[in-house]
């Protein structure tokens, strides 16, 4: 906001302060449900109390900063690539959750991300992503003996 001569209130900064306040409340509420086992000290409650108190102070600090317009200037935002990347991640999560394995999802994530970065060859990139997925699957599962979620495609190997 440094472009305007008079500093204006930063709404996003106030939202951040509000979120911190909500988080402080959640930590505090969660803390009240804990039981103290030792009669001498607060045990598991000590850190939540410290963190919750700290978050309240920081919420105030961030709010003051937002009111004074202290936040750094921000570039304009292009939402399309964000939606594409998050969409790819969501597709991967859903595919793994329903037992579709990770290969199709990974190929899809590769293609959506590269589209987000300006490529216009979705099918080619999907195939490249699939090749990488197979390569990583062989590397992880066969060479390093790690388990990856398997679907119909993975069982072919």
């Amino acid at each position, binding site marked *: 906001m440094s472009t305007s001569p008079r500093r204006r209130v930063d709404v996003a900064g106030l939202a951040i302060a509000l979120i911190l306040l909500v988080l402080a409340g959640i930590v505090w509420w969660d803390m009240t449900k804990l039981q103290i086992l030792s009669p001498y000290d607060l045990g598991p409650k000590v*850190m939540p109390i410290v963190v919750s108190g700290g978050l309240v102070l920081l919420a105030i600090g961030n709010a003051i900063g937002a009111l004074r317009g202290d936040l750094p200037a921000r570039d304009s935002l292009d939402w399309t690539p964000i939606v594409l990347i998050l969409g790819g991640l969501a597709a991967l999560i859903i595919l793994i959750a329903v037992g579709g394995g990770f290969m199709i999802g990974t190929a899809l994530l590769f293609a959506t*991300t590269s589209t987000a970065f300006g*490529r216009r060859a979705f099918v080619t990139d999907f195939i490249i992503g699939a090749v990488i997925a197979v390569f990583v699957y062989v590397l992880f599962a066969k060479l390093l003996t790690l388990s990856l979620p398997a679907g119909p495609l993975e069982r072919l190997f």
Partner: protein
Amino acid sequence: MEAFVSLANGLSVAIQPMNLLFALIGVLLGTAVGVLPGIGPALTVALLLPITFKLDPAGSIIMFAGIYYGGMYGGSTTAILINTPGESASMATALEGNKMAKAGRGGPALATAAIGSFVAGTIATLGLTFLAPYLVDIAVSFGPEDYFALMCVAFVTVSATFGDSPVRGLTSLAIGLLLGLIGIDILSGQSRLSFGVPELYDNIEVTTLAVGLFAVGEALYVASRRHVHEEKLEAVRGSLWMTKEDWKRSWKPWLRGTAFGFPIGALPAGGAEIPTFLSYSTEKRLTKYPDEFGKGAIEGVAGPEAANNAAAAGTLVPLLTLGLPTSATAAMMLAGFQQYGLNPGPLLFADQPNLVWGLIASLFIANAMLLVLNLPLVGLWVKLLAIPQPWLYAGILVFATMGTIAANPSPVELIMLTIFGVLGFLMRRFDFPIAPVVVGLILGPIAESQLRRALSISLGDPMVLMQSPISATLLVIAAIALILPFFLKGLSRFKAVED
């Protein structure tokens, strides 16, 4: 003398063929990721953690250290050739280095960065070798309250003292500490902030957090502002070698940079950023060629690069002797130790001298490997920069998600990865520093257990923190480090002037 004997023993571990191979893989990987924009050493170690936990501990940790050192070398290549420093510690290098590359002196710029890094890395690793035994002797006498106070100092310096905004830095730290609370409390067996989600009972994985913040967050951020920001790669023209004149102008800045970098890195203060800028402004003041500054002065590359590497080696001092990570990469290395059940600190020097000294000895080897590999292979590293950005980031995300599910095969882990990615994006957009979150998550639970041990010994009396002279002194230092930046906003202004 004791250090020499230990180092000689370490050398016998480090020159075992398998460990040499791990060091080589580490420096090659480290340089590659340092060169690639978008991946840093912290993310690389995070991605490798899940796939290395079945390997030999000494070998993997030697590899992680190689990645750390290699990443520092690689970062300078990118800073010089495309003026977009991958990490803040390379910002000073980019100032003069990119100007040199534009003027056709990219070769000498890369050479002075590489040789300066070698000189600084070697001196700083020597510093680590001789300082570590002393610090270990001191640390042995630390009680839990002293450790807690020491961690308070680290928390404050990492988040508040040296950042642009103490409030934003502390906010990042608080988010890390909050994430560190999630899961079952070991001492009481009760779950905190888990809301009945089984995956949350086992605490937040440091790797998932780091990969989310660094890989997914960075990809989202770069993609969202691609339309305002373009990168341009300078070709390396002319000779790679430094002239006699270049050598004459470089050696003093190398040594001065090391003198700035190592102590600041070794203090639990974190960040290679401050020493690089201190070095840059010092060289600017001392140079005989003031008119060249801003147009490509070799001193402005030699000094900050040396400072950068010396600081990186310096951060290993608190990491190894006290278990105190002061940078994101050091935090990931601590996670690397922990996955083998090893806890850096004085006890590790006593219990696993071969591992610790083998690691320190292999740092010397890694440094020499980097010097030998870097300049001849510079053409290869430059080719890495030619990977199209869409494929680069798509590949990073594929490896990020696969590494995460390989460690924890559950869709919930990927949901967390995505949430941390969005968090990382928002933090970059609103200029909150990332490293304090990672340090908070990994150091928070350790600090908590030390605090609770101290409190249970004192039967709940918090004054125990003030009764130990070490702890009282450290807490006063932490308080000063916390209050100081609010009064002296000098550092951020100082940086603004340098731009």
